[in-house]
């Protein structure tokens, strides 16, 4: 005897978004932890050393947070004015930061007071960074100059004034201690070589540059500014590789994930976008406010995003272990004491095992369909939870009822309340291309059945009115779309060159056949 075959809920692919490995990877972050800072967060930097603390520059302070702490484990507050661009040194022991008054301070991570102060800039210093040898600091300032400082003696080594506007972006090379890249509001990105003391490469971004970023190989350079993200190939002399326009406001920050070097960009439009290696957007994080700064921890363990409203949101990666713990806890069966009988029985070799018959678990609507209770099955499928969160289940039950030829019976004899439910469901889903066919049929049958009694209920009548309006609009829209399609078709046919189909092919065909 065959068992009852439950109705199969068909997985219908949604158009548009595709689920890929990458989206799954980026989806695998926990919900963000929000930390309130005193002002707009302008810079976040992760320490290269484990446990990967991160420095957050906001207002007149720099806070250092541990990977999982919500309270700062250290804070530097000796700024008279707004602090900018706090960055770690390569060994994670020193921190350099600029400030609004043009002073650059150098901190020891364990200390409180600045070790060195570099004076010389006349205006605010938004960007500071160590060069990769660790003994020099480079800074970019609003006074249009870019200066290099010696850490041990705290003297200015050189000053470069090639930019014609504020310098708001800076990236030192990790491979060569004499190279660094700057981006400025004069729409240019320049590569400076300390050995020659001048810029060796200039690229036109076309918009005020907010952020520059070097790939680890340092063959590619990313610059963001305006709504554009541009990738430059340095080995080809600064040729533009690709220009991305996925944000609709200024892109303020960019960073690279350490797994697979995926590019992430944050923008004032409150989105963080993740690109794959062919620069297609694969994932999107939404934030509450405009994003000013962003950083990702080594191994992508955490993504920290700083926003204009002073909220730091940190997303931690979800691990397989956590998930397993959750599911294992949920799946625990009845308690051990009750069902201990026969648990540790080991069958001997020549024992004949009689397995317990497996009980078939059916959903409620399947049970009702099995016993031919069609109206009840439809009621079950139209329950609020199913109707709202799993409309495909409802539609599958409707299709199954129609296949059995009992849809009319199931829809008949309903009161105002359940009829309202059905009509609301129709209103919501009748245009979903996945569902429209069976739902139109339901609409037809409902009209047939209740034609005589509609006027008795104003609620139902109103719903029907709405349904009619919506359907009319949809029909118009479809017609317009068809017209457009027709126009496009004629355009396409006129574009494709006419081929003489009969002249050439036989020869090609001959050779094919002979080869075969």
């Amino acid at each position, binding site marked *: *005897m065959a068992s009852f*075959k439950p109705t*199969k809920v068909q997985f219908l692919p949604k158009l548009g978004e595709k689920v*890929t490995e990458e989206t799954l990877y980026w989806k695998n972050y926990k919900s963000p932890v929000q930390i309130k800072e005193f002002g707009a967060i302008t810079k976040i930097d992760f320490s290269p050393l484990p446990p990967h603390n991160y420095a957050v520059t906001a207002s007149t302070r720099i806070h250092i947070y541990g990977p999982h702490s919500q309270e700062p484990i250290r804070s530097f507050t000796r700024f008279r004015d707004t602090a900018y661009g706090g960055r770690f040194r390569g060994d994670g022991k020193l921190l350099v930061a600029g400030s609004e008054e043009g002073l650059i301070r150098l901190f020891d991570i364990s200390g409180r007071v600045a070790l060195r102060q570099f004076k010389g800039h006349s205006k605010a210093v938004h960007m500071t960074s160590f060069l990769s040898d660790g003994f020099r600091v480079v800074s970019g300032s609003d006074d249009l100059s870019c200066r290099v400082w010696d850490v041990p003696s705290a003297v200015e080594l050189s000053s470069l004034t090639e930019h014609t506007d504020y310098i708001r972006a800076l990236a030192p090379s990790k491979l060569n201690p004499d190279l660094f890249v700057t981006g400025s509001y004069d729409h240019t990105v320049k590569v400076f070589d300390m050995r020659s003391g001048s810029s060796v490469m200039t690229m036109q971004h076309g918009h005020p540059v907010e952020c520059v970023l070097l790939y680890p190989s340092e063959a590619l350079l990313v610059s963001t500014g305006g709504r554009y993200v541009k990738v430059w190939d340095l080995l080809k002399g600064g040729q533009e590789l690709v220009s991305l326009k996925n944000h609709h406001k200024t892109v303020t920050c960019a960073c690279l994930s350490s797994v697979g070097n995926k590019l992430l960009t944050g923008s004032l439009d409150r989105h963080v976008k993740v690109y794959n290696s062919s620069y297609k957007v694969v994932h999107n994080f939404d934030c509450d406010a405009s994003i000013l700064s962003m950083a990702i921890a080594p191994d992508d363990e955490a993504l920290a995003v700083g926003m204009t409203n002073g909220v730091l949101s940190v997303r931690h990666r979800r691990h397989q272990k956590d998930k397993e713990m959750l599911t294992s806890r949920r799946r625990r069966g009845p308690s051990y004491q009750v069902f201990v009988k026969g648990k540790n029985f080991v069958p001997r070799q020549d024992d004949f095992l009689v397995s317990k018959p497996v009980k078939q678990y059916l959903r409620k609507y399947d049970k009702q369909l099995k016993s031919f209770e069609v109206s009840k099955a439809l009621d079950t499928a139209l329950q609020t939870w199913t109707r709202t969160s799993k409309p495909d289940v409802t539609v599958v039950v409707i299709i199954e009822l129609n*296949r*059995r*030829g009992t849809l009319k019976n199931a829809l008949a004899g309903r009161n105002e309340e359940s009829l309202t439910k059905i009509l609301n469901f129709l209103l919501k889903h009748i245009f979903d291309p996945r569902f429209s066919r069976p739902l139109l049929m339901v609409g037809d049958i409902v009209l047939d059945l209740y034609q005589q009694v509609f006027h008795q209920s104003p609620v139902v009548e109103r719903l029907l009115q709405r349904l009619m309006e919506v359907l009319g609009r949809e029909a118009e829209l479809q017609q317009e779309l068809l017209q457009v399609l027709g126009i496009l078709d004629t355009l396409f046919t006129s574009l494709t060159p006419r081929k003489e189909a009969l002249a050439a092919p*036989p020869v090609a*065909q001959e050779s094919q056949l002979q080869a*075969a």
Partner: protein
Amino acid sequence: MVEKSDVRVVRCGGSKINLRPPIISTDSRFVLCASGDSVKVYSTRTEEWLHSLQGHTNQVTGIALNPANHLQVYSCSADGTVKLWDFIDGILIKVQLVLFFLHAVDKSKICFQLVAVHLPKSAEQEVEAKELSAVSSRISPNPSCTAFGREGQYIAFARHLQLNVYFFRKQKTYSFSLKATDKKGAKNAFTCIACHPADDCIATGHEDGKIRLWRNFIHTKEYTYSTQHWHHNAVNTLCFTPEGTNLLSGGIESVLVQWQYGAGNRKEFLPRLGGSILHVSTSSDGQLFCTSHSDNKITVIESSFKVCGVIQGLVKDAVFTDLMIDPRSKALVLNGKPGHLQFYSLLRDKHLYNLDIVQQEYIYEAGLDQFEVVKAAFDIKGYWLATVEERGQKSSDLEFVLKLWAYDERTQSFVLNTTITAAHTDRIISMCFSSSEETTMLVTTAEDGQFKAWCQGADADTQQDQSFWSCDFVGSYHNLTPTNCSFSADSSLLAVSFQEVITIWSPDTWELLTTLCQPPGVVRDLCFGQLSCSKYLIATTTRNLLCCWNLLTCALEWSTSVEVSKLQPDPLSENVAAFSYQSKHTDLFVFKPNEPRPLFTHKNVCSEKIHRAVFVPREELLNNCDESSQWLNRSQLYFLTQNMVFHNFTCVSLVQLVIDDSIAVTPFYLLLGKHRQQQQKLNTPSHPAADKPQQPQGSVTITELLHTPAHVLPAASVLCSMFVSSLLISNTGVREMESSEQEMNSEKEEEHSEEEMEACDSQQELRAQGSVDEVTPKLSKAQERELKRVRKTDFSWMAGLIDSKP
């Protein structure tokens, strides 16, 4: 060996086993059922087909156990004979020539007569029964509308709205009639009858699903009946259990219902048996029930309502798909149960398994429009299967689904890979897989004027192991409806016929290469030549034209005027078979595309139109040199006629077998060698006993024994002692003498028993054998074993002896 070849049509396989109710033998070990012109015997435990009782020359129309001897069965056939069989050994015992048939149908007359046949008692083989007494001249053609009452006192039969009861003693018929319909729209026509075995009660089933229990029908006026109603459609069958405690009923719902007799409405159900129930029967001890279903199936059910066996024949409901061969198992694939594809082994005439395509609960309801598999195609390696299921006759509410199934090596079956719900906007007409080894491609043509090519989707974003199918190309030609599609042998060309025009496409670039046209007439069938003839394209049109194009020159090579209903190329050779239907009979032509001359013609294959045929590759190649049968060397041609019987073209070889006595010494032979010798002596006493086979080395015997498949070995208990003794160091001398003496003894006994058996009637065989045991109580264990074995053997040679006697 002398060989002579001849090609002829052989009816093979797929016979119906659900025509008449099956019978369970008294010991519940066998199920007997009428199947075509033979009676098939199945085992209830293993569900295996044991043997068939062959001898009738026409359809067997009824079988019944011999009430006097529970090892014998009567069968009646449309050839006018009733035969008595010993069904365990399959021996024909008696033949009775009857002019009309009990429970049988006389098709030559318009009205069906019920006659009582008195079977004369005589010991002769062929008896002509002359005593006939007509009981009624108007009975229903359905044999389930006739039933014998308690202890054979009366017989009840129904026709339309009338129930008749004939009492043998009084020689009188009482009849009761019902109104055709009443106010509630009931349909009262009788569909089946069963009589209570101990009580005066007749149960009748009706067309509207009612069951009536008639009582007190000895009086014409004062009869009473009670009505019970559960079935929603006609009751097909009714059956009382042997004690009469329960009544079993079945109908189209495929639910076996057990009503408690006398307990009102108390009933039990056994649902979803598959196929509507046609007959129910019970074993004589009431422990087993047996139902036969419309899908050519017999289900054996225990009395606790548990299914314990299913005997499945070839499912022969409507066939929509083409006949196909699964390239892996070489099984024939066609529509099976509703919504299933069945895999059927033609070689063994055995149903292998059903593949659930629709995967939905089947509702057994008359007139309900349900999904049915209408198209199916295999790719060349048998790795992919494409199916189309369809619902809805009108094009407005047509629903169809295209499904692609991948073969799973681990589970050894097909697993659903892709479901395409709206592949086309209208009905799919044909589909085919490309025949190349590297890339698989599916092409479907539909009534919406488009053909689509489907490929395994190589989606760059989803880096998953699973690959799904997606549409690769949509093609059309002047908005005409495409009818057929076919790939060339190397898959470099695709031919799609659009009514009168055949278009040739290149599947690599999807470029229209050329068009071929031979008006008038719409192209009906299309195929490329195979192997050396791959440059030819063959097509048939509705205007009786068979055309062959040469694709190198793009010109018509030849054409002839012949009405072809089915064109079938052989994938293993250049041959193409064409079935032509002209003036009410079908002819077969086999030809090679390179010459317009047929290789082989067979006139008047059958009288119906043939739409489905298939070439089945042979297991081993034949090497016939005869020109007319050469085309059957690599594969066999099977075709399906409209009344759903398989036919096969076989090359019948008249081979004179030179029987070789020197059979290879196998372990099996060694173990049973002694017994063989005995038999030979019994058969031909004058023949000198063959030499004892050489005892080979023990180790060789053991290895051979271990390599022999288990199912051909005798029972372990038989083997054991001999096997152990073969391991011992042989002690020749005295013991050998002893054993030979024992042999002599047993031989004597055998001869003795043989005489006895000849003397007594064959019905008493068993008793005779029993008596042997009684006569010789002093036999040693070894001898007893020998005797047992002798008893188990086939006694068919006895029949020969009996025949030869004057």
